[in-house]
């Protein structure tokens, strides 16, 4: 295993870059991070719609969230693969396809995190803010969301871990992220699948365990602050 890491570490890390497109672990991180950052505003909007008093807003968004959560991510990836070119008019590359699928998919999941975060804030906070003369938007913006955000932080980090794992589906549409790079190395070597896929699993393990430890730490700190 050591010899494979020794020979291929750069390939694992950045793929064919700088002679070719960026890939490997760096692409996995970039994709996961961008997806969460872009999905967050979508998730907040959908989450606000989920708790809205306006039925015409709440019902369709609720239905959308249920539909997305009942569909495998791979299905969404295939839809993106088909729909994006017909929307944008030209062939979309794998990174954009995967990113669009992840943003859409995670938006629906983040919506539920945001909804739970908002509903976890005592009702009196909103009533108090409104009776002090703030309108609904101001109360949300200055009173409810900042408090909810702190409660949501551990879930958000966990969602980031999930997203990192989900980027591995890029393998299926030929995006040169970590799993794809590993399987290419495996094809080149032919006889060392245990070492190659072992290294791959270890890389994800270290990355995701580290991040989920952060989430755990945030959770512990939050419950300490709350009591």
């Amino acid at each position: 295993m050591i010899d494979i890491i020794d020979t291929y570490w750069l390939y694992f890390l950045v793929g064919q870059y700088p002679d070719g497109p960026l890939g490997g672990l760096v692409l996995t991180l970039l994709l996961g991070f961008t997806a969460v950052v872009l999905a967050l505003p979508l998730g907040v909007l959908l989450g606000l719609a989920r708790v809205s008093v306006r039925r015409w807003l709440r019902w369709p968004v609720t239905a959308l969230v249920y539909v997305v959560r009942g569909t495998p991510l791979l299905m969404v990836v295939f839809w993106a693969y088909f729909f994006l070119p017909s929307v944008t008019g030209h062939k979309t590359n794998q990174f954009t396809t995967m990113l669009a699928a992840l943003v859409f998919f995670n938006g629906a999941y983040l919506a539920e995190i945001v909804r739970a975060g908002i509903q976890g804030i005592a009702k009196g906070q909103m009533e108090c803010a409104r009776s002090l003369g703030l309108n609904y938007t101001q109360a949300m913006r200055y009173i409810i969301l900042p408090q909810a955000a702190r409660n949501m932080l551990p879930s958000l980090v966990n969602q980031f871990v999930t997203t990192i794992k989900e980027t591995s589906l890029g393998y299926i549409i030929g995006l040169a992220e970590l799993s794809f790079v590993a399987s290419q190395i495996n094809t080149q070597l032919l006889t060392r699948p245990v070492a190659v896929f072992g290294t791959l699993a270890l890389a994800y393990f270290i990355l995701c365990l580290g991040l989920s430890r952060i989430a755990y730490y945030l959770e512990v700190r939050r419950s300490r602050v709350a009591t």
Partner: protein
Amino acid sequence: MPNFDLAAVLTDEFRGWLLDGFLLSIELTAITWLIALPLATFIALCRLSSVRVARGLGFALVEGFRNIPLLVQLLFWYFAVPELLPEALRSWLYEHDAEIVCAVAGLTFYTAAFMAEDIRSGIRAVPVTQLEAARALGFSFLASMRRIVLPQAVRIIVPPLISQTLNLWKNTSIATVIGTAELMYQAQRVETASFRGVETFTVVTLAYLAVSLLITALSVWFQRRFPVRAS
């Protein structure tokens, strides 16, 4: 979307493919579920055990299987694990649908790791005083577990377990990477043969959704019928 034509992907041949895939996805879910649940219970008990080695083992299993993407685990089971097996076992595997066996293996460990955490936190959510009170009233340890703690824990554990089942159902789609002929695999096959991606994916998405919504409905029903009681 010019001429959306569902009939084009629902000819006898294509319908047969999709139906085979759907049934295999259901089978994968059912078999995995049946193996994963006892495994998860075992891992959860390990993590709650007072024996240090058992706790360490439980922790390692949960963190290991949860933090590696399912896709990578499936690749490992399919490409690497057979290399580690003795010759006889390996040839047996290749004669008996290796891609289905590996898919079940990968899905089982992945699902069990998540279920174990739900079971563990469910049992821990029942206050220790419940057990102590039962013991003080003269129940044996096993009797107080069976009659006092578990009945309360089940109400807490079942809803997250149902949602893990939903995840399991969706995760079966990833088995397509190792060539398991489940619904997503058949979808790609029909799409390639019919050149009708939108129609194929519409049918398949509806199939996934139908089962998912059924599982969600089950969860809602359970939480209404058996709400968690304040203790």
